[in-house]
């Protein structure tokens, strides 16, 4: 047991820091509680990822032959920690890097790997994820989009929802039903769909924050070449599981650093804002809640390390991934709840006496409502923990 960096890890961390110091344009810096959606900054963000790629930082743990750095998961985690610590913008191609790419590496043919992977790293081609549908959210296996064979093409029809980055994406990982007769999880195929194909209609979906991070997508008679199937026909559910496993991967290290930064900001705020005429930090109830948030956010850091040690040692992700996401999302809601309470009635405005932070906290409070829903609701995560970790019987 040793929580320090090894000399190699420390050297790697320093290399990341030095590179970020030299290359991160401070004017572009965004804090973790960033107000705006990335859409107007897409070009800048694309350029930023290009810079990361040139520096060799996109795909730290990807194989060298596909343009990655060929380093380990530990280095990948350190990279995300340092990115978050320096408040650097995350790479724009998050779906490509975190989900599509790793799935192509595992299930793709060589020609697919050659075709797609390096352009994911450079952000030349941005990816989106066509999994959820209006009738298939938590119950993903209920998806109804269909793909029917027509010669050497498949013709796709259906509707997808909550699609992050679809409005700027070149490619989409898309689940469609190819065998309507097969049992729910059997007749699904995993496609790589060109978003510039005729029949793809993307409409921004405004969320409760007032911004539109994601979209609805309507697919009408979209023709996809057969070679764009990833993995085998009707084996899409298994391929999709690889994608979903990666969804809760090393990116968590960035989230846990961001959560720590947010808690430190909240503590600083509690020293300034008054409660009953005294600094809020002196209120015993507030102190209890801050202490509890530290317990939770420190647990995120440690849970991440435990998960990583398990994967590095056994090659199999442990239960920590689901536990970490559940804890992170619930904690972020509690943290922003507390921030709003610290502001009191002023928290009902979004601008008050020149406090520049209020606007960010208000946005964060709204945004964090989605944390316990996206990437597996807390209820689905508890099902996963109960059934796959504890071995309890299925709930239906």
């Amino acid at each position: 047991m040793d929580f320090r960096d090894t000399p190699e890890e420390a050297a790697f961390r320093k290399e990341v820091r030095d590179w970020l110091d030299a290359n991160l344009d401070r004017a572009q810096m965004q804090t973790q509680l960033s107000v705006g959606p990335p859409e107007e900054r897409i070009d800048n963000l694309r350029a930023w990822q290009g810079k990361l790629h040139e520096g060799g930082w996109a795909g730290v743990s990807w194989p060298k032959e596909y343009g990655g750095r060929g380093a380990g998961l530990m280095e990948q985690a350190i990279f995300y920690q340092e990115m978050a610590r320096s408040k650097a913008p995350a790479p724009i191609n998050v779906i490509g890097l975190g989900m599509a790419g790793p799935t192509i590496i595992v299930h793709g043919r060589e020609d697919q790997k050659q075709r797609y992977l390096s352009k994911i790293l450079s952000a030349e081609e941005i990816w989106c994820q066509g999994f959820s549908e209006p009738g298939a959210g938590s119950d993903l296996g209920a998806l109804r989009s269909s793909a029917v064979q027509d010669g050497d093409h498949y013709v796709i029809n259906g509707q997808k929802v909550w699609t992050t980055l679809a409005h700027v994406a070149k490619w989409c990982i898309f689940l469609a039903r190819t065998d309507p007769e097969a049992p729910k999880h059997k007749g699904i195929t995993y496609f790589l769909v060109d978003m510039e194909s005729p029949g793809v209609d993307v409409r921004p979906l405004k969320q409760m924050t007032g911004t539109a991070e994601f979209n609805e997508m309507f697919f009408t008679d979209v023709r996809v070449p057969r070679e764009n199937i990833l993995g085998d026909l009707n084996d899409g559910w298994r391929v999709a599981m690889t994608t979903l496993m990666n969804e809760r991967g090393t990116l968590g290290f960035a989230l846990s650093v961001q959560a720590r930064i947010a808690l430190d900001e909240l503590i600083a705020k509690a020293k300034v804002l008054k409660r009953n005429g005294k600094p809020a930090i002196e209120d015993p109830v507030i102190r209890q809640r801050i202490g509890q948030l530290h317990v939770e956010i420190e647990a995120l850091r440690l849970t991440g390390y435990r998960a990583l040690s398990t994967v590095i040692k056994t090659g199999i992700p442990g239960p920590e991934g689901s536990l970490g996401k559940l804890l992170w999302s619930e904690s972020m809601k509690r943290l922003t709840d507390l921030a709003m309470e610290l502001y009191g009635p002023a928290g009902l405005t979004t601008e008050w006496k020149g406090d520049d932070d209020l606007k960010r906290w208000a946005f964060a409070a709204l945004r964090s409502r989605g944390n316990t829903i996206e990437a597996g609701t807390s209820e689905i995560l508890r099902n996963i923990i109960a059934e796959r970790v504890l071995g309890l019987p299925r709930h239906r």
Partner: protein
Amino acid sequence: MDFGFNDEQEALRQSAREVLTDKAGPAGYRKAMGSKTGTDDALWKTIGELGWAGVAIDEQHGGLGLGLIELVILMEETGRALAPVPFFSTVALAGQLLEQTSPNGGSARRDEALREIASGGARATAALGQKDGRYDAAGVSVKAARTENGWTFSGTASLVPEAHLADFILVVARIEKSRNPEEGLGLFLVPAQALKSKPKPQPSLDGARRLADVRLGKVEVPTDALLAENAWPLVARALDRAAVLLAAEAVGVATAQLERAVAYARERSQFDRPIGSFQAISHKCADMLLVTETARSHVYYAAWALEEGAPDARLAAATAKAAASDAARIVANDSIQVHGGIGFTWEHEMHLFYRRAKFCELYLGDASAWRERVTAALAAAS
């Protein structure tokens, strides 16, 4: 970075689990609870032979020379098996106080006491000199006065775990009045024979770990019974370590409770289905796992941080005890709830776990007390 145990540590855990499954467990606890002394002398002898009490004591004093992480492993396993022995009071309270006492300029009695724990089978505990079971310097009400031949005490230390079993007791007492309560305190080693009256345990919720008042009035000890003057800094360090060890025990208890709740939820059927298929039950179990594993991560990190003298070691200890006290309470409550009526009966073993969990939760300070320390540290740092 490596968040894992080495092969020797895994082997220690394995052997501890085997021994304790065989010789302790709820049945052993129940027997001890119903006995006059609340302890299992035969098991203590076995533990002595295995050298567990001396795991963290250096080799020159007859120990194995390992560290806090090995002790954490043993505390977790004794918790899991509800071992009815004074392991906590001996290694976590007395042991840590002795270890934090400077070997140089300290008394030869310190070395002797460590040797007796490591290889002599001695049972020990600590009396923090408090009237009402507090753990802070201001709460120390026992006093010690110099005499011609040594020291004489006045006052009573309350709620001392296993005092009736102890061969010797580490006593914190005020030597000098001071405006700063953390100054003027001494740490003494008081052999049980020196006491005027044998500590009589209170009827205790955890019947296999009883609490007793230690009456120190007119008790006399020789000069070299004083192990340290200005002892509070070392006492505070020892209490941080003891808190992490108690937190480790809490994690062990919670793990055993959760395993039983899950096993019961799989086998018990109502409405023609195993109750574990109902989300009202399964989500409770998932939440129990979350708090238990969270506490476990904190405990391992804190043990490492204390051992390495990491800058955040005290904060880590506070975080660990806060998390473990919460886990102890939540899992003790909900694992009984999952069992329904049967879990509420005297015959069932769940209440035995509840009793030990309660000790782990409340002793040395509950979750709120440690959360307050967490925030105090954070607010001071930022």
